[in-house]
């Protein structure tokens, strides 16, 4: 792998232990994937922030990096944590809160932005064609496919190393030839809501493995539905992007074709519910984190309605979007719901809060919650989720 003089000096330790360790990580990974060089990135996004999934090991490493003077060189954002300070934090024991806050403190010492979101593209949209080093698989697929930026699916530690060096190894999807579609997916059914887009993603992820699809037959799709598709595709597959084939942008004549029919989508929707339940402990919207538009839609649908007493109703987003959505947040909270900032249900301590059954419109949450939260799941579109929250 070719290194510039400056990169070589970092590798040899002239800029301290933290930079040297991070440079070693990038170079070794680059060699593993036959990268010829490093490329500059415009931002990094790090996963592995929730203390619930991390445990104690990473905190030690982060502290060592921060103590050695590690500082990020590019805009660097963080995935959600395990609670929010306003609502869930108050219901958790002190020791867990402290350990989570220590993880955040170490990231902050190194200059990370406390974004705490899985949708960093709502905070600052990357430029088309810019190189990124993002972990968080749902954001990786969205960034490549919808935003038009270029990022591999990084792991937590490799995104951290890229944030500190400001570069990433030039392999995989950073190379134009690796972004071409390999398979044509014809969707011969019309998808009726965001949950069905999620189900399509779960279905395709299993079929495609790491082959980039050109998807045709979707028509004009709202970006929030593409967000559900991205998150679900990344949950069951290794593919890091999709193309929407609206006409003749992509040459697809020679590609292998697969067809998705109504029954494929319906079957997947059904398979994502572990149980049909009319009184879930929790109704959860916001995986991936809600946009301003989604919060507005929920607020309008909840107007003059009351969440029933037996059900918790959570809407998750980032602190930044929550502040922008103040008037809608007030509406949702007036109806008895909670808008939680910086937290993700999958990586929160739902078990400790007594939550055994979850209803959600997110295929990704439906896919992970049975194992990550040891919960029964009912998978329904937004309107049915809200109706259940109200009715109980």
């Amino acid at each position, binding site marked *: 792998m070719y290194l510039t003089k400056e990169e070589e000096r970092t590798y040899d330790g002239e800029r301290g232990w933290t930079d040297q*360790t991070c440079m070693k*990580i990038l170079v070794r*990974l680059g060699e593993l994937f036959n990268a010829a060089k490093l490329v500059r990135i415009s931002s990094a996004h790090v*996963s592995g922030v929730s203390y619930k999934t*991390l445990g104690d090991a990473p905190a*030690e490493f982060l502290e060592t990096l921060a103590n050695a003077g590690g500082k990020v060189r590019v805009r660097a954002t963080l995935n959600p944590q395990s609670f929010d300070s306003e609502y869930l934090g108050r219901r958790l024991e002190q020791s867990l809160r402290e350990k989570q806050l220590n993880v955040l403190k170490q990231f902050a010492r190194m200059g990370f932005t406390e974004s705490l979101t899985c949708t960093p593209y709502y905070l600052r949209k990357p430029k088309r064609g810019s190189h990124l080093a993002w972990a968080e698989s749902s954001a990786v697929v969205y960034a490549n496919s919808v935003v038009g930026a270029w990022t591999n699916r990084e792991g*937590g530690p490799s995104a951290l190393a890229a944030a500190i060096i400001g570069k990433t190894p030039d392999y995989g999807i950073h190379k134009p030839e690796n972004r071409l579609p390999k398979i044509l997916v014809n969707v011969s059914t019309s998808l009726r809501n965001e949950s069905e887009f999620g189900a399509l993603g779960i279905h395709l992820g299993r079929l495609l493995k790491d082959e980039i699809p050109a998807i045709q037959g979707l028509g004009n799709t709202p970006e929030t539905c593409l967000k559900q598709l991205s998150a679900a595709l990344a949950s069951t597959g290794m593919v890091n992007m999709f193309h929407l084939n609206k006409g003749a942008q992509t040459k697809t004549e020679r590609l292998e074709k697969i067809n998705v029919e109504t029954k494929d989508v319906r079957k997947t929707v059904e398979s994502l519910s572990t149980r049909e339940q009319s009184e879930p402990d929790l109704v959860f919207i916001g995986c991936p984190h809600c946009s301003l538009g989604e919060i507005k839609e929920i607020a309008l649908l909840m107007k003059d309605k009351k969440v029933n007493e037996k059900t918790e109703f959570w809407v998750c987003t980032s602190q930044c979007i929550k502040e922008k959505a103040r008037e809608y947040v007030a509406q949702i909270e007036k109806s008895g719901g909670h808008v939680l900032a910086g937290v993700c249900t999958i990586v929160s301590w739902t078990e400790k809060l007594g939550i055994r059954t979850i209803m959600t419109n997110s295929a990704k949450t439906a896919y992970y919650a049975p194992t990550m939260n040891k919960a029964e799941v009912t998978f329904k579109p937004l309107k049915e989720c809200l109706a259940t929250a109200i009715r109980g």
Partner: protein
Amino acid sequence: MRNKTLKGRVIVEGHCKAKALVSAKPISFLGGVDPATGKIVEKDHDLCGESVKGKILCFPHGHGSTVGSYVLYSLSKRHLAPKAIINQTADPVVVVGAIIADIPMIDQVDISLIKTGDLIEVDAKKGVVRILTDGES
């Protein structure tokens, strides 16, 4: 007595001699290895219950969450880490873990030639593994 030399690719430099602990199965360090004891805790794993401490840990490759890299770091801080790692095909989780924990590592080695209990020497400068004495002899 076998006295064999196997060649591989250096991932993290270093040199050591220890007994081999060999698995035919991939290892997930997050959830699969207890960072407090160094024992493999993944149910149904062929090494379940074994401690990785001080061993030359040989397995095909890692899998699972990238948080697993940090588990290797934590093991090394507690002196519970393997002395070296030999993989068939290195993957990002184990590579990053070996770098931050400073554990000598070689890959592209045919680990089916190594048996648990063999005394082996890892020269992770030249990328060479020597089987010094047979575990059974």
